């Protein structure tokens, strides 16, 4: 009986259910001290001096450190390093200039966190206020002579002018996606420990990309790679923001080395909302040419991305993905995108689950709705006219994203749309909503189609070791942020090897266990690590059969492994050896039963989906409620349906947050207005509808041995788009929504325009 394809319950759950799990804040080391970060209270200013004497005298204080006490370079760009980004990198502690409210200026280290927090209030920074720049459309200067417009990312194919020429209709629209972000329930945290005897610095609280961060920290601290070890613990959600290298990660390591004590920093929620990466925040001005049939000949988009005060580790990633993925599942013979990365005096921004696609899908699907409205077509029909037909796939976009060529590998987009239409009972549902609107209700339906991406390479390495008890360890450089990767990887390993899943243990995120690893981002783990696991398992299996053949005096080709027992196929009563026996024999012979495999790929794999939302608007309060939600998604092959569904449903809830509730606003002086859960509103169970999930496995990916595509970002991708369409439908003004989030104020404004 195979495990892959079954809703196996998760191996990682028991410690999480009983309170025995260890998140970084749960760890205790002897003699540990607490670090508190002193942050800039102003959005833009000259940092004239930092007065620390009084804080240094406060009870329990061990040290107060400013930029003058440290000699650390700024934090480098990890991905999509467009040229010219260097001057915009964030220093670990501000020196001479502060650029956003929340920027680290100093750290106080004290015996306990209460004392550190008390003393941090006594640090006084003298700052000469400068005019804050808050509008990405009117960028200022980053520094004298260095423009705040950092770079422009371009994507282009086809003939734009020709496209408009053959189009009978042209429309132009400005569309905005607000500033919101991942907001995991666990805030960030890090513990640095200096092992004097070995000269090794350890950091606990690593996540997402431990191996990359290890090398970055080693470089910044001037240590050899093997003198830095990162350790991943339980992680309370990542969503793209957590696990990137931030100033605090470097600071705990450096402070530990300077002071010779374990140093712990646990972020509080206010800090999280002003210090951890924000995301989204784009303004698009798009011009579209289409003909009477609704066929879109050309999209010409220009957008401005407000990336906050500094270029952090993601570099140009979000702008790159926005431009690359915006055309989505449609043909669009000519396309141009120009994305300007602009810095302002707000919290720096990076990637958040489905970066560039949540935004781009909103823009594209608004276009499809506008085209339909203009021509009096049904919105599903405007999509049908434009979808890439099955016989054109694999479909090459003729440009690249994340330095890999964008080629949609497999799929039938219209077939998935058909299924969703059928499941919705589309015609009846439309008619029913029509009737309800005629009775004065404000109800509407919106549909969005999209292409996702997953399985970013270039490689992933997995090592599988079997010990004499027959237990199997899978060691990977991937990371876990709570998605359930231990279970999926164990399922793949158990099947490949022929053992019970209970015998498999998955080790991840430990740089001292495996030299290389890419981590967990871009929905890559199931595809990349899963593939490497299946290859390593096959290799171990082959070795085991060969060994066993000797022990059983049989031909390896006649043997099979089932539940860890190796015997001649078809003779269950015959002699057998266990995998543990074979491992023991291998050790006796001076070897071991293990294998390392590497999976390489140069292309991502592209799952796709269709989402539909039904909303209800309260005329009195202008509040919008999502009453029904459907996700159709083709994932190629499913390892664990329950986990896939969990990813998709969870993504929808986050998408609803970005569509209706979540937004970081600033006042005119650059003070952030959302600094607690009272003003940054995350959806609760009341705002989250039941989500129906329809997963299909029509088109396994030809790019990997197991055929999988990722599920991590397929839930959130289309939510802003589908809800915007549904609200427009409910209000009888299909194109009215041009901005996310859709707040009661904006609905009120549309109603009074109506």
């Amino acid at each position, binding site marked *: 009986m195979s495990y892959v394809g079954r809703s196996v*319950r998760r191996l990682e759950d028991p410690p999480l259910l009983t309170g025995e799990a260890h998140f970084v*804040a749960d760890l205790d080391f002897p003699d540990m001290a607490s670090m508190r970060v002193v942050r800039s209270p102003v959005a833009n200013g000259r940092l004239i001096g930092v007065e620390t004497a009084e804080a240094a005298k406060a009870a329990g204080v061990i040290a107060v450190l400013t930029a003058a006490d440290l000699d650390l370079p700024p934090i480098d760009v990890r991905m999509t390093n467009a040229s010219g980004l260097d001057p915009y990198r964030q220093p670990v502690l501000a020196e001479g200039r502060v650029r956003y409210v929340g920027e680290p200026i100093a750290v106080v280290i004290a015996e306990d966190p209460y004392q550190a927090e008390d003393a941090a209030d006594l640090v006084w920074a003298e700052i000469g206020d400068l005019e804050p720049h808050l509008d990405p459309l009117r960028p200022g200067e980053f520094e004298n002579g260095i423009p705040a417009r950092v770079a422009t990312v371009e994507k282009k194919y086809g003939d734009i002018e020709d496209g408009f020429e053959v189009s009978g209709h042209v429309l132009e629209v400005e569309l905005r996606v607000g500033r919101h972000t991942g907001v995991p329930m666990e805030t960030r945290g890090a513990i640095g420990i200096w092992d004097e005897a070995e000269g090794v610095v350890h950091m606990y609280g690593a996540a997402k990309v431990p191996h990359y961060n290890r090398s970055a920290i080693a470089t910044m601290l001037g240590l050899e790679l093997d003198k830095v070890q990162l350790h991943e613990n339980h992680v309370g959600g990542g969503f793209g923001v957590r696990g990137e290298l931030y100033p605090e990660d470097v600071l705990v390591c450096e402070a530990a080395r300077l002071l010779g004590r374990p140093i712990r920093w646990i972020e509080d*929620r206010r800090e999280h909302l002003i210090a951890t990466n924000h995301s989204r925040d784009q303004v698009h001005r798009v011009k579209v040419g289409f003909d009477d049939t609704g066929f879109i000949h050309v999209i010409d988009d220009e957008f401005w991305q407000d990336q906050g005060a500094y270029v952090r580790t993601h570099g140009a990633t979000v702008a790159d993905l926005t431009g690359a993925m915006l055309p989505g599942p449609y043909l669009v013979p000519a396309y141009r995108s120009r994305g300007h990365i602009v810095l302002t005096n707000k919290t720096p921004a990076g990637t958040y689950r489905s970066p560039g696609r949540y935004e781009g899908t909103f823009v594209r699907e608004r276009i499809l709705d506008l085209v339909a409205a203009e021509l009096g077509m049904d919105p599903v029909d405007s999509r049908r006219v434009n979808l890439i037909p099955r016989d054109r796939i694999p479909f090459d976009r003729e440009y690249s994203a994340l330095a890999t060529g964008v080629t949609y590998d497999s799929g039938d987009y219209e077939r998935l749309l058909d299924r969703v239409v059928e499941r919705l009972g589309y015609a009846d549902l439309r008619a029913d909503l029509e009737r309800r609107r005629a009775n004065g209700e404000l109800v509407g339906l919106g549909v969005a189609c999209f292409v996702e991406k997953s399985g970013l390479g270039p490689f992933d390495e997995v090592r599988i070791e079997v010990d004499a008890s027959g237990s199997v360890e899978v060691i990977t450089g991937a990371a876990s942020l709570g998605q359930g990767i231990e279970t999926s990887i164990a399922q793949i390993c158990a099947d490949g090897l022929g053992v019970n899943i209970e015998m498999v243990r998955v080790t991840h995120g430990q740089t001292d266990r495996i030299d290389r690893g890419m981590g967990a981002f871009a929905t890559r783990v199931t595809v990349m690590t899963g593939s490497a696991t299946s290859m390593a398992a096959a290799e171990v299996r082959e070795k085991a059969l060969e060994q066993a053949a000797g022990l059983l005096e049989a031909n390896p080709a006649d043997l099979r492994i089932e539940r860890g027992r190796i015997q001649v196929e078809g003779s269950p009563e015959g002699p057998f050896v266990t995998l543990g026996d074979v491992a023991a024999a291998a050790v006796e012979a001076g070897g071991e039963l293990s294998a390392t495999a590497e999976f390489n790929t140069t292309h991502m794999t592209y799952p796709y989906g269709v989402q539909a939302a039904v909303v209800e608007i309260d005329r009195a309060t202008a509040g919008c409620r999502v009453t029904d939600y459907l996700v159709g998604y083709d994932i190629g092959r499913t390892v664990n349906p329950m986990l896939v569904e*969990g990813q998709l449903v969870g993504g929808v809830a986050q998408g609803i947050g970005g569509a209706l509730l979540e937004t970081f606003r600033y006042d005119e002086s650059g003070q952030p207005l959302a600094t607690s*859960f009272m003003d940054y509103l995350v959806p609760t169970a009341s705002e989250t509808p039941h989500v129906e999930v329809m997963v299909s496995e029509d088109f396994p990916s030809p790019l990997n041995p197991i055929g999988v595509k990722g599920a991590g970002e397929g839930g959130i991708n289309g939510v802003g788009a589908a809800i915007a369409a549904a609200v427009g439908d409910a209000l009888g003004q299909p194109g009215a929504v041009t901005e996310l989030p859709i707040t009661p104020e904006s609905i009120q404004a549309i109603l009074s325009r109506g």
Partner: protein
Amino acid sequence: MTALRDITLLVNGQEYAVRVEPRKTLADTIREDCRLTGTHLGCEHGVCGACTILVDGSPVRSCLLFAVQCEGVEIETVEGLASDGVLHPLQEAFWEHHGLQCGFCTPGFLMLAKGALEEDPGLTGESLKEVLSSNLCRCTGYQNILAAVEAAAVRMRR
């Protein structure tokens, strides 16, 4: 910094003699002084519910109480849910229904649900959803949490 106070807390039926500042929250005291780290902190301002525990059977936010206020009450945390290695029906149901992903919010939800179901064993549907909307989860979209609590409620009534 104020004078330390000696107090005794009763957590999961066990007494803990601790010495704390009057300003130390109950959550921090449970986590640091009793070393029961299953109670999590997601906001420290009373909104997320990750720190939910039971005080005399009722769900409360332990980040909003001071330890010195809690002498003489019965405190229950997630560590007290399973007995002798046997999971509580709520824990079983969360496992079975995939009611957790990262698991950071889970202890708070388990304690909230336990308190709510003990007060009203018949809690279901919209009213259950309303109760559970007092805690935040960023991973699951709540669907499986609701399903898990519904399933556990049925088992607990038996």
